[in-house]
């Protein structure tokens, strides 16, 4: 192994800190190129991507270059910049559709957290006194149906399931009919994880949509793309392709309880402007938060929680 590797590994504990650690200044000092570079790097480390990190830093430079600013001030300024981009897309997932049910199709790449997010949404809607039904549209993955059924039990909602290997679109259709007959408020449809570059699998999603439209031309009323916060720049491809082929109308980002900061959402907001509904912060049913632009931006910029308004 070349020795730069050894160097790297010993040095890593220092450089791999979260965003903000790189901005470690106590006293107010001039905002100069070196500090701006550090800020840019910290933003790249939070997955904002090179271009967006550059733009945020440039705006900061235009507004405050040469001024005295302390660590907290820099973080707050970064948070403000980012929040401005995110604020217009923060939109909770509301139950508004008449006639009922509101059909929510949940899509995304493998393992991003779709099924768990569905459990969380079901739980939240139940708490808001809506009636909820789930459809186990992942007929492919081993025990995907069993997993959703357990969540259904925990959330106290009915789960419509078919045989493993069955037709997802047919199941979605049946579930829609059942939910309509029962007057259920919300029907949430789970789907198998799929990578966006697999044409055949993406076509399947388009088919699920077509079949739902036979019952109501406006269905599915929401198509939620679940993104994993640990995903890097490929998340942008995911948003683009799922939007174009599966008609995604909004985003949820999961796994923000780790060290991943999910900065790619900032780029997604700039580029696609799709609503961001909620974030996942744990594996439990209660671990869903509405997406709050200011809060998210503060976390990204490493503003300590207590400094949040």
């Amino acid at each position, binding site marked *: 192994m070349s020795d730069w590797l050894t160097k790297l590994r010993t040095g890593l504990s220092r450089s791999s800190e979260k965003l903000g650690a790189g901005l470690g200044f106590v006293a107010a000092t001039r905002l100069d190129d070196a500090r701006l570079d550090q800020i840019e790097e910290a933003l790249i480390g939070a997955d904002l991507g090179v271009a967006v990190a550059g733009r945020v830093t440039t705006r900061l430079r235009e507004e405050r270059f040469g001024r005295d600013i302390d660590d907290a001030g820099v973080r707050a300024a970064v948070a403000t910049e980012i929040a401005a981009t995110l604020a217009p897309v923060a939109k909770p997932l509301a139950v508004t559709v008449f006639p009922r049910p509101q059909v929510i199709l949940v899509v995304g790449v493998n393992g991003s*957290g779709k099924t768990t997010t569905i459990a969380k949404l079901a739980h939240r809607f139940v708490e808001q006194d809506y009636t909820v039904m789930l459809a186990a549209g992942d007929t492919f993955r081993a025990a995907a149906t069993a997993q959703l059924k357990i969540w259904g039990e925990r959330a106290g909602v009915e789960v419509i399931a078919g045989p493993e290997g069955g037709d997802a679109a047919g199941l979605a259709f049946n579930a829609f009919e059942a939910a309509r007959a029962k007057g259920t408020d919300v029907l949430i449809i789970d789907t198998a994880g799929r990578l966006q570059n697999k044409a055949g699998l993406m076509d399947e999603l388009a088919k699920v949509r077509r079949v739902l439209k036979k019952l109501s031309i406006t269905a599915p009323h929401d198509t939620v793309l679940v993104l994993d916060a640990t995903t890097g720049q490929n998340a942008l491809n995911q948003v683009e392709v799922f939007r174009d082929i599966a008609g995604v109308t909004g985003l949820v980002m999961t796994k923000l309880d780790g060290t991943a900061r999910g900065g790619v959402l900032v780029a997604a907001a700039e580029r696609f402007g799709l609503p961001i509904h909620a974030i996942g912060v744990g594996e439990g049913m209660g671990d869903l938060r509405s997406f709050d632009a200011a809060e998210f931006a503060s976390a990204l910029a490493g503003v300590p929680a207590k400094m949040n308004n």
Partner: protein
Amino acid sequence: MRSPALYYLERPRLFDSLSDRLSGVFDKLRGRGALTELDVRAAMREVRIALLEADVALPVVKTFIDDVTTRAIGHEVIRSVTPGQQVVKIVSDALVEMLGSEAVELNLGVTPPAVIMLVGLQGSGKTTTCAKIAKRLAEKQGKKVLMASLDVARPAAQEQLRILGEQTKVATLPIVPGQQPVEIAIRARQAAKLQGFDVLMLDTAGRLHVDDALMGEMQAVAREGAPNEILLVVDALTGQDAVNVATAFGSQVALTGVVLTRLDGDARGGAALSMRSVTGKPIKFAGTGEKLDALEAFDPQRVAGRILGMGDVVGLVERAAEVFEQEAAEKMAAKMAKGQFDMEDLRTQLGQMKKMGGLGAIANMIPGVAQAKKAMANGQVDDRILGRMEAVICSMTPKERGKPEIITAKRRIRIAKGAGTTVQEVNKVLKMHQEMAGAMKKLRKMGGMKGMAAMLGKMGGGPGMGGGGGMPDIQKMLGSGGMPPGFDKFKR
């Protein structure tokens, strides 16, 4: 009906490759001898961006750039390639070296049972990978394998592994509800020993590296299970967080290797470099699909090309060192990158083929057609054919060469006459050009090297809800019989 998604996915996309970036940087420097420090530093700024866009973690990028900068300064630029291409080659070589030049096998040479434990973040692909490895060991190496799920957290996780066991015909440890991970590990070891299993696979629950309780549990399992292999399963889509994950898992258990999943996606895969450099452990397998045979040995060359996001510029540089004239090489590389390929290019190719006494560089550049050289040697394609083809192209007007679509039946007759041959022969040349251009376009639409890697990888569909996904078979795309596109038409 043609798949709308496929149509969409093949739409033209911006070709944003490192070589494109570098050609900008080096435009003014064409034709110098050795790479100066100034040139190299300018180039490294672009390399840095390329790596970051490929999701290589920032600290890893920095160290890598320092290393490559040192290597590149003073490096001779091979005559007939541009300094930019030379830099790409140096970067790529360093990348391959870093990713690990040789494959490292699982260590099973212990008193049975050999224990393999899988760890990683939630949803990274541990359970699926567990079944894939078990299947491979059972089928390819005739091992008697037992799988046990220690995941008591995720709903139906143990059930998932049980079903995968059924599908792969690999034994799974009976589920005892309420048992905790460490207890399951102990029971699994005993069962494996008593029942004479060669290999025991321990699938664990997904956990965040910041979750002290779960990380502690993982350490306890590692103590009791006494694994010979602890594999960190990582999603190839992972971004900058890869560094944190690798550092944390690597410091808490004695990792022996990494498995990179979802390489069937279109991510640039920078996580491979981050993982490899932070853990220092070999990447032992690549997951390339949901299906249980979608597991491959990790191929550093392919992933390096993917991270750099470019066509086969590296190969081009290698070959150019032998024959190519600088001009033609540059033009060709640029055209390949853009997926353009007109009659002029075909003619250049034919000329090259004659000169090299073999297939042209372009044909070589298209993966899978190296064997076509054999066809040449066997006399299936010979110089006379090449000469006839050249004559056909010469008989076209410049406009026709640039835009072969305009060649109507009437024009074909004229061209055939001019070349002293038949219309059929003209048709063959046109067809050949079309197929080569098609192949080129396909490569470019799928993002150059990225696309090649995807095509060469297992293209098996995924969730089997009907339509099989997948891309066209490369062999079909490139023409039959190991010949470059269109060449089979000239076979006798």
